């Protein structure tokens, strides 16, 4: 009994201690000139879908849920953001080469078509980020058409 109490206390202390290890916030608060909406045509409907469904992990601005301030959840969230941004950053899309822009647009269509994005762990909590069949078609068509419209300057 005393042992169990000790372990319980230890876990509690660890839990409290790790709350002080907050990862840096991903929040620039401004729309970058290199944002995708300033690089290629994005309809308001598509833009809204990307913002609710993808920007939390794929831009320089995350809308943090309250529980992201609780560790270790915040670390997991932060891991997704770091990895997601390295793959694709909508805030910096304009700084990509034409080849990479085309390549990313193709990946977006593929990922949405395969139901790989948004991540399931994300839509599980953010129900409004779940893409309907129509939403998916909208994003896929936009990504495909934009990809075709960007000419490879070669």
């Amino acid at each position, binding site marked *: 009994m005393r042992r169990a109490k000790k372990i319980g*206390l*230890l876990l509690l*202390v*660890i839990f409290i*201690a*790790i709350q002080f*290890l907050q*990862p840096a916030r991903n929040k620039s608060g401004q729309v970058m000139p290199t944002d995708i909406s300033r690089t290629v045509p994005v309809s308001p409907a598509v833009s809204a879908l990307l913002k609710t469904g993808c920007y939390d992990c794929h831009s320089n601005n995350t809308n943090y849920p309250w529980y992201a301030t609780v560790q*270790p959840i915040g*670390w997991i969230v*932060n*891991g997704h953001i*770091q*990895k997601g941004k*390295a793959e694709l950053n909508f805030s910096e899309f304009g700084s990509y*080469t034409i*080849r*990479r822009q085309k*390549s990313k647009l*193709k*990946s977006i269509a*593929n990922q949405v078509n*395969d139901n*790989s994005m948004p991540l399931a762990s994300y839509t599980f909590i953010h129900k409004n980020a779940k893409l309907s069949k129509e939403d998916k078609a909208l994003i896929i068509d936009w990504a495909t058409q934009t990809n075709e419209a960007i000419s490879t300057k*070669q």
Partner: protein
Amino acid sequence: MKNTFMCMAIVAIALSACNNNTTEEKKTNDTTNSAATAAPVTGGSSVKDIVEHYLHIKNALTKDDGKEAANGGKALADVFAKFDQSSLTAEQKKTFTDIQADAKEHAEHISVNAEKIAHQREHFATLSKDVYDLVKTLGGGQTLYNDFCPMYNNNKGATWLSETKDIKNPYLGKTMPTCGTVKETIQ
């Protein structure tokens, strides 16, 4: 109490340390790898190496072998990173850097998705375009065939490069091994 604090500190450090060092880890891995496997005489890799590892991925995909494709992807990312640009003209360098940034990413994705062959194939489709542009700019060092499969990706189609004239389809694999046609022969 002292012990409790020690444990706490150790756990906290361990947890925070394992959180964000994936890229770091990759880098050190890369350097140890290149130190161990770098050829003694030649400094960097050539188009020949790129084509070789690209074909390695292609041939693995024709056999539906995601694991082997992943091995090829790793090797390809490596030779892209170590490419020797010293013999290129300024114009060629520009094209190469452009292709390299994209192709290396696709190779990496192929290397880490051994269990998801459909995803490997998506990246292989874009990679094929990159390598096609590369051999058109710098020469492939061997005869290559640019093949086209009209059925892949909901009939949107995709191309790939092959070292043989016979069609062996890397997108449909064993389900439709001979689907496709030669569109261009690159000498």
